[in-house]
Structures are given as structure tokens and as C-alpha cells.
């Protein structure tokens, strides 16, 4: 990480937080109870909430496609950004309606499908941004449930998930296996597009 990159990341963090403070939006309110305490509730929440799970997997796949370096970065930065966002969300009182998951689906799915060769200076901030945004929404949801300790569970699950998924893609050697990943990316992007459609339909009616 060069210094310029860190500065850009910092600016982005502030920008994103600013946007969140200014815009209203709706949380996806369903909590999972595992009956095993808040940490496992957090893990369960991540694994059973496709709005969060699919973007995380997509990000891991994309970073895996970009190589070990990007995968390493995502493995460490995504959980940290998520935690930071989650802590912010826990202390916010908002009713927000930005279709953030839909946008993440579209962005990440599109990048995978196109096998877009983004420079590291962009992958880093993007990872942080996605972690922050989803983290904030998680925090808003968790506030009414298990709260802070669940964030620790989510962080752990994120770390494991990103490590495994991006290492998996890095280890793919045959060209057609990468194509399978790209096809899956196109599905993610397509789902995101549909979700944006649903969102606008909800706004119209």
C-alpha cells in the first residue's frame, strides 16, 4: 500500500460515511437466532443473509481473479472495514432506503463477468467501501438483536470466507474454470439489476 493509496482510501471512507449520514434508507431486518450466543448469531446472520453473503463471495472471487495480492488485501481489509462500519451502524439511528446490496451485486458481478483488470489502487478502496457500507447496515440491524459481539462473529466468518474463496480462485489454473467464475459473476450482476428494478417498482407504487 502506497501512501497515496491510503490517503485515497481515507477520503473514500469519509465520503461514504458522509453519504450514509445524509441519505435515508431501509435496513433488511431479519435476524437469525442460533441459540448459541451472539457470536454464533453473527456468523449465522452473515451466512443466511444473501444480501450480504453474495457480495462477500463475489468480492472474494473477484479479488481471487486479480491474484494473491488482492486476495490477501481483501482478507484483512474487508473484515476490518465491516467492523468499523458495524460499530458506526450500532450507534446510528437511521431508517435508510438505498439499495446497497443491489448496487454491490451489480458492481462486483459486472467486474467478475468482464474480468476487469482494475489497478490495485482501486481494488483496495472498493473493498473498504463495500465492507463499510454493508457493515453499517449490519450494525443497524444488529442493534435490535445481539449487538456488538455478533460483529465479532461476522468478522471471523468474513475472514474465513474471503480467505477460502479467494484462495480457491487463485488456485484455479485451467482457463475454463475461470470462465465458470465469470459466468457466476454475470448471474450476480443480473440479479443485482433485477433488484434495482424491484427497488424502483417499490418507489413508484
Amino acid at each position, binding site marked *: 500500500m502506497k501512501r497515496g493509496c491510503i490517503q485515497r482510501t481515507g477520503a473514500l471512507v469519509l465520503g461514504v460515511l458522509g453519504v450514509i449520514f445524509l441519505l435515508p434508507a431501509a435496513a433488511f431486518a431479519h435476524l437469525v*437466532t*442460533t*441459540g*448459541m*450466543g451472539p*457470536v*454464533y448469531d453473527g456468523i449465522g446472520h452473515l451466512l443466511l443473509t444473501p444480501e450480504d453473503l453474495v457480495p462477500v463471495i463475489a468480492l472474494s472471487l473477484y479479488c481471487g481473479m486479480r491474484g*494473491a495480492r488482492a*486476495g*490477501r488485501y481483501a*482478507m484483512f481489509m474487508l473484515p476490518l472495514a465491516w467492523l468499523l462500519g458495524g460499530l458506526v451502524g450500532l450507534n446510528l439511528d437511521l431508517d435508510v432506503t438505498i439499495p446497497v446490496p443491489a448496487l454491490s451485486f451489480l458492481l462486483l458481478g459486472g467486474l467478475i463477468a468482464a474480468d476487469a483488470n482494475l489497478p490495485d489502487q482501486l481494488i483496495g478502496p472498493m473493498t473498504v467501501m463495500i465492507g463499510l457500507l454493508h457493515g453499517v447496515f449490519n450494525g443497524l440491524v444488529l442493534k435490535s438483536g445481539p449487538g456488538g*459481539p455478533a460483529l465479532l462473529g461476522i468478522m471471523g466468518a468474513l475472514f*474465513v470466507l474471503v*480467505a*477460502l474463496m*479467494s*484462495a*480457491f480462485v*487463485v*488456485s484455479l489454473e485451467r482457463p475454463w474454470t475461470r470462465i465458470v467464475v465469470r459466468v457466476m459473476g454475470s448471474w450476480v450482476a443480473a440479479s443485482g439489476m433485477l433488484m434495482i428494478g424491484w427497488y424502483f417498482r417499490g418507489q413508484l407504487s
Partner: protein
Amino acid sequence: MYRLIFLFIFLFWAGLFQPALGHESQPGSVELVEIGEDRYRVTWKAPIYYGKPHPARLELPESWQTLGQPTERRRANDIVFERVVTIGQRGLDGSILKFPGLETTITDVYVRVKRADGSQATSVVRPTKPWTELRGERPWYETSREYLFLGFHHILLGIDHLLFVLGLLLIVKNRVMLIKTITSFTVAHSVTLGIATLGYAQAPLPPLNAAIALSILFLGPEIVRVKRGQTSLTIRYPWLIAFGFGLLHGFGFASGLSTTGMPQAELPWALLCFNVGVELGQLLFVFTALGLVWAFRTLQVHWPRWVLWLPGYTVGSLGAYWTIQRTVMLIRGF
């Protein structure tokens, strides 16, 4: 010097998270014994939850009438509530017992019904579904699923057991040794889990917990020896140690499976399902750990030196902390 600092950080950390980490999930229980025409004695044993009375209550169906005065006895590990009820004309089948407050905890409750004709029925209430419908017979797959999840949850909440497995993983050097070690740990704890559950032998909980903590502490120095390239009996034959201490851990697992009063015919099956659940949880843990190691290698992560020492010191210092803590509890007779 650094190592000393980390040791302290870990002891502090261990102390901070101790209530969550050192948890042995003590189940609660409700027993309904038929003592006359439509008359049942209801015994609700609520375990002490982190040093306080348990937050959950037992709520009986409204149509049930309490006879006489309900009693309440406080014991070392639980509070026993007892009352006699008449259940009215509609009979027991289909009645619903509720446990308000259970959903905020991690406690499982065993519910048993003993009828005058000698027939018995059991079920397990979990925080995710804090109520149960009383029924005479339940299909076998429902019982199996219940005990399978129970075992799975028990191992995932028993951080001390997982830490011991982690220690073993850090000692073994190759795949064959890994398979041997995990298998012998599994065999050993299955044996004692079976013996304890079937009632052939019993281990009192406080000394047992201290001994389990000691087994974790024991692995700490061995891991350091592996890192330094030294060798020892444990490092050459980790499966031997896994077997020996596995016998101890099996008694620990048995504490999560309370079977008093369970129908004899159901017992072996419940035991098997519980054990399978434990093994599944253990395998999940082992595969996650191995997967992470593989992922770190594939992603070419270069850890700083102190991180490489971290798992070993975690095992060792948490083991030490628990050993001291549980020994103190043992001596105090708490």
C-alpha cells in the same frame, strides 16, 4: 520480552472473555411425573446462569391447576422449582410448555414425561424455539435431529475442547499423523462419553473441568517445542496423547447430554446421534483450520514472526488460565 508481553495480553484477554469462553453448557430440565388421576408433579431445574438465577421461566398451560404450595430450593448448580398440578379433562397430549426468556440464553432444556403406566417421553427445548408440545410418541428422525444438533452445538460452544484440537493440529506434522491423531481422539472421547452416559462411570464436574484445562495447558509447551524443532514423546506420538486426554474430554461431553429418566430404548440412539453431532462439529473445526492454512499458503501470506507464535501461546495461556481458575474453584468447593 515480547513473548512475556503477549502472555500478559492473552491472560488479560482470556479474563475478559472468560464467561463466554469457559462455558460448559449446563442444560436445564423439566420432569412431569404422573402421580395420580390427571395429577402430575412438575419439577423444573433451572441451572445457575453465569452466577445468577436463570432468566428463563417455565410457563405451564393455563388450564392446569396448581395444588398446594409450589416449592423452591436453591442448590449449588441450579434452582429446583416443584409443584403438583391437575391437568384437567383434555389430557397431556397437545399441551404446550413455554419457556419465556430462554431465547436470550444458550441453555437447552430437557423435558421428560413419566406416566403411571411406565411409558416415558422426552424432548429437548432449545433457545431458537423456546416451547415444546407434549406428545406421547415422537418419530425417530425428530429425536435424532434433536440430539445431533445438541452434540454439534455442544462442541462448538465448548471452546476448551476446540482449543485442545487446535493444539493437536499444531503438533502433527503430516497428513497420516493428523488422521491418526484425530481418529484416536474421537475414539477415546466416544468411549468415555458412552461409558458416562450409560451410567457405568461418573466423573464429578469440577475436578474434571480442571483436568481438561490441564490437558490444554500441557499442549502449550509441546507446541513451542515443535516450533523450536525439538522433539518429545508427544511430538513423536501425538495420537497417544490425543487418546489419553480424549478419555477425559469424553466425560466433559457427557455433561452436555443429560439422560436421567430417558427411556432406556431411546438411550443408545440418542447417544449415537449426540456423538455424531460432536464429531461433525469437530470435523467442521478441523477442516476450517486446515482450509485456512491452505488459503494462507495459496495467497502467499507472510506472517510476522509473532503471529506464528500466537496460536501456540493462545493454547498455552488459556490452558494455564483455566487450570488456575478451575483449581481455585475446586479448592473453594464452589
